[in-house]
């Protein structure tokens, strides 16, 4: 296949990031509270206890209990319950006055994402009507500017240093024998600088992310360091720092031992370079284990795709930065000679990297997107589309290098003027390409802080109607049946009433078997099912605390009429706090 055909195939493949089923991220969610949500107690409780589906870390959790006047009623820090590791407990003032109280909570999931929620309870016997509490806003999240910027700088510096290592040792090393050592020395210096920045950036990101999670200042390093390894996310990035430090040790040793002017590598050179390459491979495995890839099924496939995606992106981006370093570092008289050696070799490597980048990115997208329309209906999907758009622009620029500058530089001996003009074009195109890829890395950093849509997102497409927020009274028709759905008060973390009135030809349908299934379409949560009982002719109802969190819920009414064909009517309901 010619280069042009290759490029056409890759460009077409880059646009294909579609459909298919998969799982998504696992965020902590609340499964039980004491006092019960919206419940009225006879006496003042001593504590507030919140039970999650996983053992969330109390040092990163907030539980605030406030009265209707906004007075804080907690008397101590959040602690883990000795009886149940999944339960967090906070002590309350004794003898709380009669009235309503708001419990607002925030916890950090295993994958490092903050989750939050709120519910109310009352101390009786006569608490009066529930007031409208203002729910506190998010105190800090993974998409806050500080961790986002540090994450981008970290990814850029780590990827560039690994790409520069590959270019220096496996692509441009021949420069020393062909055109002298100037260019190679510049690449070595650039690699050392990038790896030092990478080391500092990983440490800064770990500090910023832990500061956000534990609601401390980034400068409170003494308090933050002991918290680094508390979450799986933190442990992952501490290990990444360790792996990257080992990569630096091995890579700098390989630089010291390298004798590129000799035609063959010695045993010592081979061993040191192999050590650095192994460490680089290890470094790029870590972000997947501490992020979405590890939470997405099948984890083996997504982790491999994530690793290949980072590796190919590193080779492409670091290589481009290396070409620019060469362009500026090599004196003008020797520039064309140096570039004519490196650019054609790098073009082949970059082409392979782009192919792997496109394929692995497509696999990851398919794995994370439950449906095609999740690409434009969810923030995660839109971020993927933006990233694909930026990469397509980078590919268009890359095609200029591949089809014009690389052949011109390869044929440098035949016409110096043509090669000189190609060298100028290369600088412009490589700069543009590097800036575009850096933009894609920024979007990737944003992506890793957003939650992918859960498989239940696909249920939105089956909904007959979209209702809420607020009390619901909505009628739909399905298979000749008229179905009136009532949800009241349609509030999250409260016992809501759900009712379905079924009529056919104006008459109530009696003795049907009705099951109501709840799925949150924006968050990974367990499915809940309740059987509705016939309370009046043709009216099936049930009260249940099913809407655990605010957001969009798929309410699927599975109806089996007596002597009729079963059918399902799905409603998309937005519950508010």
């Amino acid at each position, binding site marked *: 296949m010619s280069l042009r055909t290759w490029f056409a195939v890759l460009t077409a493949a880059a646009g294909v990031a579609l459909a298919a089923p998969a799982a998504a991220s696992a965020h902590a969610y609340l499964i039980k509270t004491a006092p019960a949500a919206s419940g009225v107690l006879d006496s003042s409780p001593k504590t507030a206890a919140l039970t999650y589906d996983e053992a969330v870390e109390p040092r990163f959790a907030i539980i605030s209990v406030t009265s209707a006047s906004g007075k804080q009623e907690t008397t101590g820090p959040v602690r883990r319950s000795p009886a149940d590791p999944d339960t967090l407990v906070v002590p309350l003032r004794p003898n709380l006055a009669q009235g309503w109280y708001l419990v607002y909570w925030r916890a950090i999931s295993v994958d490092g994402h903050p989750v939050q929620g709120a519910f109310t309870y009352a101390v009786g016997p006569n608490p009066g009507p529930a007031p409208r509490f203002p729910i506190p806003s998010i105190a800090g999240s993974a998409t806050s500017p500080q961790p986002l910027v540090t994450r981008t700088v970290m990814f850029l510096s780590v990827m560039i240093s690994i790409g520069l290592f590959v270019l220096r040792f496996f692509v441009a090393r021949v420069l020393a024998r062909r055109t002298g050592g100037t260019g190679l020395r510049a690449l070595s210096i650039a690699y050392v600088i990038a790896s030092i920045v990478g080391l500092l950036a990983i440490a800064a990101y770990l500090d910023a992310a832990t500061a956000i999670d534990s609601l401390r200042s980034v400068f409170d390093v003494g308090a933050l360091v002991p918290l680094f390894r508390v979450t*799986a996310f933190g*442990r*992952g990035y501490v*290990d990444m720092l*360790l*792996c990257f430090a*080992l*990569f630096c*040790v*091995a890579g700098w*040793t*390989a630089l*010291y*031992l390298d004798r590129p002017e000799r035609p063959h590598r*010695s*045993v*010592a*050179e*081979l*061993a*040191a370079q*192999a*050590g*650095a*390459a*192994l*460490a680089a*491979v*290890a*470094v790029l*495995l*870590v972000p997947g*284990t*501490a992020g979405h890839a*590890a939470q997405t099924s099948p*984890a*083996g496939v997504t*982790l491999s795709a994530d690793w290949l995606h980072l590796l190919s992106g590193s080779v492409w981006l670091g290589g481009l930065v290396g070409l620019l370093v060469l362009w500026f570092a090599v004196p003008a008289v020797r520039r064309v000679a140096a570039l004519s050696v490196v650019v054609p070799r790098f073009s082949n490597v970059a082409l392979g990297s782009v192919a792997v980048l496109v394929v692995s990115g497509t696999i990851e997208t398919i794995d994370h997107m439950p449906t095609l329309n999740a690409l434009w209906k969810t923030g995660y999907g839109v971020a993927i589309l933006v990233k694909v758009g930026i990469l397509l622009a980078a590919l268009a620029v890359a095609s200029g290098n591949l089809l014009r500058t690389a052949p011109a530089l390869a044929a440098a001996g035949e016409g110096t003027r043509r090669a000189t003009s190609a060298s100028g074009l290369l600088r412009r195109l490589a700069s543009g390409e590097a800036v575009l890829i850096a933009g894609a890395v920024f979007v990737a950093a944003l992506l890793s802080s957003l939650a992918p849509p859960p498989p239940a997102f696909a249920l939105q497409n089956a909904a007959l109607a979209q209702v809420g927020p607020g009390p619901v009274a909505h009628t739909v028709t399905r298979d000749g049946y008229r179905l009136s759905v009532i949800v009241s008060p349609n509030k999250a973390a409260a016992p809501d009433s759900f009712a379905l009135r079924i009529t056919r030809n104006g008459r109530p349908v009696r003795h049907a078997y009705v099951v109501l299934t709840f799925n949150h379409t924006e968050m990974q949560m367990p499915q809940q099912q309740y059987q509705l009982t016939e309370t009046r002719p043709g009216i099936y109802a049930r009260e249940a605390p099913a809407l655990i969190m605010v957001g969009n819920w798929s309410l699927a009414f599975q109806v089996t009429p007596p002597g009729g064909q079963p059918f399902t009517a799905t409603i998309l309901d937005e519950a508010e706090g």
Partner: protein
Amino acid sequence: MTEDRQTTAASTRVALRLLMAAAALAAGIAAVVIAIQLVRTVL
């Protein structure tokens, strides 16, 4: 004598280079072991 000293110095240099290379290789292997352990916790 001078030749002996030169040979010894060259051998020492080679030994040192090999030692450094072994350290670099060990660093790479250690990094891979850390990453594999991390992967095993999530698979």
